[in-house]
C-alpha cells in the first residue's frame, strides 16, 4: 500500500474512534426542540417588588391547585392493567383490569381497519348503567368470520358486559366480563374490563362526571 494512503487512513480511523467514544460517553442528549420549548420556563422570574412577587406567587399556586381534581378520580394504568380510584395522596380503591390489546383487524372485503387500543388522556364518566346490553359493532362479526346482520336486534348481547358499565364516551366503557381469568392481560378491544366484585364497588363509589385518567 502506498505510504500517503496511511496519512488518510490513520487520521480517519482516529476521528471515527473519537466520535464513537464521544457517542458512548454522551449517551444521547435530548433534542434541541424540547430544550427551546421550555427555554421560557428557565427565564421566568418573580417581580422585584415584594408585594407584587407575593401576589404573583399566590396566583401561580392557585392556578396549580385548580389543576388538581377536587374529588376522587379514576386512574387506568394500561401498562400494568390496573384500575384505581384515588386522590392526589392516597389510593382509595385498586383492582386488576384488562385494557386494549393493540391488535389490528382488517376487513378483507371492505378494507376497513380497526386498532384495538384503550384511548389515553383525560375523560369523564358520562353514564352509569345497570345490566348493560352490548350492541355488537361490525368488527365483532368480522372477527368471528360471521356476516354482519341487518336486523339491529341480532347485534344485542345481554351477557358480555357484566352487571354494570361506566361509559366514558365514544362507546368506550369500564364494564364487567365473562372472561375473568384474562384479567391483567391486554386482551380487550379498547374497553376496560373489571372483575364483577370490583366493578360493583367501583360503580358505587363513582358518580357521573368523575374524572378518568388513562395512561
Amino acid at each position, binding site marked *: 500500500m502506498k505510504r500517503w494512503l496511511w496519512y488518510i487512513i490513520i487520521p480517519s480511523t482516529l476521528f471515527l474512534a473519537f466520535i464513537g467514544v464521544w457517542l458512548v460517553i454522551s449517551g444521547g442528549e435530548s433534542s434541541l426542540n424540547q430544550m427551546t420549548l421550555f427555554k421560557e420556563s428557565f427565564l421566568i422570574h418573580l417581580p422585584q417588588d415584594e408585594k407584587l412577587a407575593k401576589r404573583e406567587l399566590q396566583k401561580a399556586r392557585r392556578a396549580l391547585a385548580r389543576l388538581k381534581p377536587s374529588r376522587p378520580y379514576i386512574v387506568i394504568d394500561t401498562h400494568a392493567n390496573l384500575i384505581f380510584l384515588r386522590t392526589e395522596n392516597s389510593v382509595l380503591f385498586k383492582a386488576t383490569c384488562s385494557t386494549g390489546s393493540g*391488535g389490528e383487524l382488517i376487513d378483507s372485503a371492505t378494507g376497513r381497519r380497526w386498532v384495538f387500543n384503550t384511548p389515553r388522556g383525560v375523560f369523564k364518566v358520562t353514564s352509569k348503567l345497570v345490566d348493560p346490553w352490548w350492541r355488537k359493532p361490525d368488527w365483532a362479526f368480522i372477527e368471528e368470520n360471521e356476516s354482519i346482520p341487518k336486523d339491529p336486534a341480532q347485534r344485542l348481547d345481554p351477557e358480555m358486559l357484566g352487571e354494570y358499565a361506566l361509559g366514558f364516551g365514544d362507546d368506550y366503557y369500564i364494564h364487567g366480563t365473562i372472561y375473568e381469568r384474562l384479567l391483567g392481560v391486554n386482551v380487550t378491544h379498547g374497553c376496560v374490563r373489571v372483575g364483577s366484585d370490583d366493578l360493583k364497588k367501583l360503580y358505587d363509589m363513582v358518580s357521573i362526571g368523575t374524572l378518568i385518567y388513562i395512561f
Partner: protein
Amino acid sequence: MTWFQLGPSSTSSNLQKMLLKARWIALPLCSFLICTALSTCEKRKSGQSSIPNQTAKKWNRERAELEYRLIQTELKLAKSEELYMVLNFQRKVLRLKLKGAVVWDYPIDIYEADSQEVREFVERFQGDDRRLIRFLSGKHLFAAQHKTPDSILAIVGEAVRANPELLQRDVPARFQLLWGYGLTLEVRTDIVGQPKSPLKSTLVEFRHALRRPFGEAHLIVKMRPADALTLYRAARPGLPTLLYPPL
C-alpha cells in the same frame, strides 16, 4: 314578599319589623361568614403546595423564585396531553402526572442511602443554569421476567386473535432511565429476571465505566415489580422530567 302579610295582628306586624331589621344584620353577617370560609379554603389549598407557604413566614426570595419557576414549568407541562414525571426530593416521591393530576407515585427509596449521591444527582440535573426540567433520553432493560407464561398467552392470543408477543408484559428486574449529561436512575426489584440483550447491557456498563472519570450521577432505587413495570413502560424517551430539589 307575601309571607310578611299573613295577618293584620299587631304581633305579626312586630315580627315583620323585627325580621326587616334582622335582614340588615343578617346580610353582612352571612357575607362575612362566606368570605371567612372561602379564605380558609384558600389557605388550605395553598398549604398543599409542595413547598411550604413561605409568604406566611419570613419572605425568602430565593425559595419563592424556585417555587414560582417550578409552578410555572409544571403549568406548562400540564397544558400538554402527555404524561410527565416529577422527581420530588422534597417529599421523597417519584410521580407520573397527567394534566396536573397524579396518576402513579412511588416513594423514592434510595438503594444505597447516601445523601451525597442525591446531592450529586440534583446538582448535575440542574447544571449551571439551574434548570428544573430535563427530558428522558433513553432507557435500558438489563433483566426481566415474563408476566404471563407464554403457553397461556399462546392460547389467549389465538382466542382474541392477537399476537402473544403484543400481549406479553415483561416485568423488569433491573432497568435504567437515562437523561444524558451523565444522569442515571437505576431501578431494581427483588425478582430474578432473564438477562435482556446482553451485548447492549455490556455496552451500557462500559459506557458508565468510561463516563465515571468525567463525572456521573447514578441513583439506585428499589421498587415493587408491578410499579417497576408501570414506570418502565410509561417512561418513553422524551418524557419530560421535573425536579423538585431538596430544600
